[in-house]
């Protein structure tokens, strides 16, 4: 439900207010609209006569951004238009509000879906593949300019590709350049550096880490990075897949480390949205904030006074070369009426031309997955993001994309919140997670 926004990259100057308005819409969508819009999603059935692609053909394109919702919509619209112009295929755009799209995706795919639709890499793609809801795209791969790590992210457990990536965004520790400069602080390289930096911040009356978890999902990012740093990427992924015990020593170590870091975080995170936490960092009340690059949305800037570093190494035997960098892209619906057109379009969507078309049309560019895409519109922050992700050895997709979504939402969100309320009862929290995990995965 609440996901790290796929439209990660700047939605121009979205303020905290506007973002809370979105959560109202989310509520509205639920109390009634959800039913209606599930129908709206499926309402676009139609003819499929004529040629599959090219002149006279139509491909239906479902996107998870409502018309006029900002740069994310503008980019997708421009991409659709560019494809229509280049291939001659008519593109029928079906633009649906972000949360509504996510919440009705199941009904959508099993009804009469569009041929191509926006989606995410990771477990959430894999589970559709396993259930035969999306089309095997392995005959479209490799795609020029998409390297092996993206191919890996597009691959389901059966070894075939079902996904075409277009963009991504990293999770890292953000800070104000001006604040760091004024105080003579530098990004920490090691755990000791980090501890020294945090102590110095506290000495100067600055809360080291901004922190908000009212929506439940932002704190997952903290869990992810601590788990990757303390137990390694492979353990993290198999834990997400339900193959490791949640009440084992490894997970307890993560929570225990987190417990020791909590005094350096903003108090009362459960009543604070990530936008409010970002504002606190923006105003200099807090020194740093661990979040995705969409943090710029709440700050109304695109990296002029914002920089980031990846979370430092915590265990000397585990290199600090993994991070969360959720990938957005496209799938072809198995129940779509025009499979050939869908596949052809999906392949094109992975190209540098598609990424450029999107980035040239919107105020705020995304970070393209394709290595051939132009970076001329990128801000420094985005250029650095691309470098950091390019240099990472392992890329995770974020907890609610790497594991069973219902486990993430119904078990992990309340459990992490319980931990934040009651950080001393680690045994109780981990035991409860394990019991529920056994029931869901078992």
């Amino acid at each position, binding site marked *: 439900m609440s996901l790290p926004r796929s439209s990660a990259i700047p939605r121009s100057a979205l303020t905290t207010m506007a973002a*809370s308005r979105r959560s109202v819409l989310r509520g509205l969508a639920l109390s009634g609209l959800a039913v209606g819009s599930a129908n709206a999603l499926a309402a676009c059935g139609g003819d499929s006569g004529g040629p599959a692609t090219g002149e006279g053909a139509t491909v239906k394109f479902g996107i998870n951004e409502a018309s006029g919702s900002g740069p994310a919509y503008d980019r997708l619209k421009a991409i659709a238009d560019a494809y229509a112009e280049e291939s001659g295929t008519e593109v029928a755009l079906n633009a649906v509000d972000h949360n509504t799209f996510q919440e009705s995706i199941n009904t959508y795919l099993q009804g009469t879906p569009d041929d191509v639709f926006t989606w995410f890499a990771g477990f959430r793609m894999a589970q559709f593949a396993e259930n035969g809801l999306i089309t095997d795209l392995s005959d479209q791969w490799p795609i020029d300019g998409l390297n092996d790590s993206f191919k890996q992210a597009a691959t389901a457990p059966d070894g075939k590709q079902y996904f075409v990536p277009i963009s991504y965004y990293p999770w890292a520790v953000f800070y104000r350049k001006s604040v760091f400069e004024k105080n003579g602080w530098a990004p920490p390289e090691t755990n000791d550096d980090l501890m020294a930096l945090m102590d110095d911040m506290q000495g100067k009356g600055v809360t080291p880490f901004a922190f908000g978890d009212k929506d*439940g999902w932002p704190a997952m990012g903290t869990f992810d990075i601590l788990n990757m740093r303390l137990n390694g990427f492979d353990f993290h992924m198999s834990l997400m897949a339900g193959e490791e015990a949640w009440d084992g020593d490894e997970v307890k170590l993560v929570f225990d480390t987190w417990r020791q870091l909590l005094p350096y975080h903003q108090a009362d995170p*459960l009543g604070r949205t990530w936008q409010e936490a970002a504002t606190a960092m923006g105003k200099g009340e807090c020194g740093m904030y661990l979040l995705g690059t969409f943090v710029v949305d709440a700050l109304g800037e695109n990296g002029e006074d914002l920089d980031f570093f990846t979370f430092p190494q915590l265990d000397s035997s585990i290199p600090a070369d993994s991070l969360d960098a959720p990938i957005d892209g496209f799938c072809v619906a198995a129940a779509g009426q025009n499979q050939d057109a869908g596949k052809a379009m999906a392949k094109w969507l992975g190209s540098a031309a598609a990424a450029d078309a999107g980035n040239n049309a919107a105020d705020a560019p995304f970070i393209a997955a394709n290595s051939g895409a132009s970076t001329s519109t990128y801000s420094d922050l985005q250029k650095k993001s691309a470098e950091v992700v390019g240099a990472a050895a392992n890329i995770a997709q974020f907890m609610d994309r790497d594991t069973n979504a219902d486990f993430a939402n119904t078990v992990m969100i309340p459990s992490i919140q319980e931990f934040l309320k009651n950080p001393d009862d680690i045994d109780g929290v981990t035991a409860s997670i394990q019991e529920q995990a056994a029931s869901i995965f078992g």
Partner: protein
Amino acid sequence: MAHIDEAPRATKPGEEAVAPPQGREKKLPGRDRFTVVTMVTIPLLLVVALVWVPALLSVVLSFGKWNGFGDLDTIEWVGFQNYRDIVTIYPAFWPAIQHNLIWLAFLFFLPTLFGMFLAVLLDREMRGSRIYQTAFYMPVVLSLALIGFIWQLFYSRDQGLINDIFGSQVDWYGDPDINLWAVLVATAWRHTGYIMLIYLAGLKGVDASLREAAAVDGASEVKTFFHVIFPVMRPINMIVIVIVVIESLRAFDLVWVVNKGRNGLELIGALVAQNVVGEATRYGFGSALAVIMMLISSVFITVYLRNVFREERRG
């Protein structure tokens, strides 16, 4: 109704003296019978198809484990496991039951009684009563989702109005010991106006001569209300009670807007939604929760219906 009334009139005058048998034992002419049967059958079919069939299917689903992908034959039947999990290892369940009960008691004792009090005041035709009436009723027009948003502006810990004015640091929506009460205040803001309007409508319908008679007999205002008006208002009182019970059982939207019914705001309705709304879903588990909610509601409904029928028999 007219037909049934006509029926006895058709009998001979002599028979009228005999106490007429109970209505349903009377023989109806064929056409009337047809009308009655149709009028009963159509609503019955609708109720069965739209209420009972889905309800029974939920009961069936609650014994399975299904994430909504694939056909019905992919449902894995697990017996009572969902129910067992809910009462044993699902940490949100017992708090949710408790919160629903608190919700009911709170709604009943504060906003409902206050709304009735306001109605009585406004009924006295004081100056500007229209303005007050509108002001108190205004929140009812807003959806609870919008109300959640409006109150967020008051309650936000860092940027909210309340903490700003008082210089406090209370985490109104985030602290699980406080947030339920914060949300209840927001609910009360709306509920009061709702009850006020219903009660006011009832008061306007009370025969003015009753008041006059009471006044002539020298009863005070307060006495008149409790001994004359209140008893006459019995049907409205009943409706108010039912509304309060229904409102507290279906309480959902507000907590959903605040934090999706987690962290101190667990309610049964929100738990059902958490489990069945979304891209990957636990239909079985969510259905089991819904069944539990249905059982709780039926207790209230049964009590209410028994009460109503007893009333009618007495009347």
